[in-house]
């Protein structure tokens, strides 16, 4: 007794595409709103009464690129570059009662390095996971290939990374959400967790292959998915529950970090069942 998951496999890909298209469109159209971690520059968060920051900046010949009010009386100011003494002078010009909450300045070299390393980390993580799964699943009986298991899992995790990236590109456009070092952390954590779910399913396929040697592959996968469905959902649910607690109570500073994790993990649960498994079925049954 099992659910016939594979009957609708093209529908699952269709749903993924529907979710991906707006995000990917936004990525091409608007790109990502990168923080000073990547671009270099200065971020100044101050508490003050309203003032004409732009004018003060231009009077002092400072390159103020954006002003954002995050809460009442709290302003986030972004400069191309602003050293500590310029910052002091700038704050003095605003008037009395200015409280500096945060001052961050990153040089362009550091920013460029960060971008390179972040991309490299995602690529390396994907490669390492393909290799690990291929190695760990090397016992699957012929004619099945453990590399196909590995690559299917990684396609699913790249799907999840793309969902999060696309969504944050939209968020950046709509709500001025920035991509910072923490966001890269969230993406890599999502990557690690996405494979978590996929492996639970694949592990069961590996176990069922010898037992059900006379059944077609798609039926074996259907059977394995049915058997592992509850635990896939439950393991994701526990993480979603704690993340929801963080989202509701964890405060402003890490809010978008938690949102990225949450979206990625929901997407990871979907993709392991509805992308990784069907992909494996299509690939493994294509041969004559």
């Amino acid at each position, binding site marked *: 007794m099992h659910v016939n998951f594979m009957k609708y496999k093209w529908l699952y890909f269709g749903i993924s595409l529907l979710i991906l298209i707006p995000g990917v469109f936004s990525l091409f159209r608007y790109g990502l709103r990168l923080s000073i971690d990547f671009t270099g520059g200065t971020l100044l968060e101050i508490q003050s009464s309203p003032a004409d920051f732009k004018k003060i900046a231009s009077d002092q010949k400072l390159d103020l690129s954006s002003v954002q009010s995050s809460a009442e009386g709290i302003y986030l100011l972004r400069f191309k570059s602003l050293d500590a003494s310029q910052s002091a002078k700038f704050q003095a010009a605003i008037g009395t009662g200015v409280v500096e909450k945060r001052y961050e300045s990153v040089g362009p070299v550091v920013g460029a390095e960060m971008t390179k390393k972040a991309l490299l980390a995602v690529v390396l993580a994907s490669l390492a996971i393909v290799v*690990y799964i291929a190695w760990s699943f090397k016992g699957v009986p012929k004619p099945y290939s453990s590399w196909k298991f590995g690559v299917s899992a990684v396609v699913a995790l790249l799907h999840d990374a793309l969902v999060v990236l696309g969504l944050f590109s939209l968020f950046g456009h709509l709500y001025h959400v920035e991509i910072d070092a923490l966001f*890269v*952390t969230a993406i890599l954590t999502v990557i690690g967790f996405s494979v978590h779910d996929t492996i639970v399913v694949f592990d069961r396929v590996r176990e069922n292959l010898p037992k059900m040697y006379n059944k077609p592959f798609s039926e074996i996968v259907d059977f394995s998915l049915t058997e592992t469905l509850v635990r896939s959902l439950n393991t994701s649910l526990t993480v979603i529950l704690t993340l929801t607690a963080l989202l509701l109570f964890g405060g402003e500073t890490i809010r978008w970090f938690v949102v990225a994790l949450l979206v990625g993990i929901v997407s990871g649960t979907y993709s392991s069942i509805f992308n990784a498994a069907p992909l494996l079925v299509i690939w493994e049954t294509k041969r004559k």
Partner: protein
Amino acid sequence: MRSHIIILTIILLAVVSNLPSRLQIGNLSLYRPRIDFTLLGRRFYRDLSLKLGLDLSGGVHLVYQADTSSLPDSDRAAAVEATRVNIERRVNSLGVAEPIIQTSKAGSDYRLIVELAGISDINQATSLIGQTAQLEFRSTAVATPSSAADFTSTGLTGRDLRLAQVQFDSGKAAGQPVVSIEFSPDGAKKFSEITSKSIGKPLAIFLDNQLVTAPTVQTAITDGRAVISGNFTPDEAKKLTIQLNAGALPIPIHIIEQRNIGATLGVESIHKSLVAAAVGLVVIWLFMIVNYGLKGLLADLALIVYILIFLALIKLIPITLTLAGIAGFVLSIGMAVDANILIFERMKEELRWGRPLKAAVELGFHRAWTSVRDSNASSLITAGLLFWFGTGSVRGFALTLAVGILVSLFTSITVTRSLLRLVYAR
């Protein structure tokens, strides 16, 4: 039996590490023990207090780029280390509780990372660190000077010094440690003039206006190299070279990154994260009991053990706790029971397939292992890459994640299995 004892010992150690630093029971005060021993010449000291990152405690984070282009490759690491010691000395005068001054290498670039918790004035910090050297050579007209006032400035300062090193005398006092110093071309010229003028007289080295040593000049020195001999012990000679190198500021540094985090933001964050952690924990507890009944309750007990061991390890390693790290910890509470879920679901299956209860419990652990192993391995791989990719708070997150995964494997498998065996022994 033996595994029970090992588990209990680990739990006990974790509990002790997590006690408040001073516990008052009636008239009795208990103090949390400190770890302090020396093994193979390396001192191991932990006071078992939580180290908070700058985003939680508030403070100044500075990254300097060291310009080593004027130095040959072989001298670079030593020069950067000397600069670090210099900065450390200057920072100590700020009275920061535990300043962190680290060197790091990015490609061929050397960086110095300075973290000052509790400092809010970034200008004060940068001007102090960036101040120029105060090493000075002073000459005297008096043959046997009695006080610092007898010396007059020569104009030869730390800017003219390139490197100081400990060496061992090969001449008549063989094996005696001496300090060799090397001047820049400019400094060598000045040094040659000064020494030729003061043969037979002491030439004093002052560091931050304090007399360090005043060796007597034997001959004029023209090659820009000098040896300071005195009755140094090896430790004294080493300390002097560090001071000299530090005073000399062998390489220019400039700021490439600076962050100033207000303290109020940190305190708020800690409170909010703690609330989130507590809520998350209670929800997970209920979730496990609702879904798995008695087994779930045992997993919940294992989860408490997980939290105890996790916190103890954070203090022991020690890992600096950042906001992202706390988020990682809350996340890991959700992930810590995942192995339990995989195992319990397997047990349900084994029962459905007609196994007797006791066998089903054992098989549940045994057969769920491959999926538990593989899924956690993939998380460890990404945690490793995160550690490599990141600095500061990202590394904190990666470390907390990795520690969380490893500890959760222990509690969700070993501890839960022991509890289950106790309950289902009959």
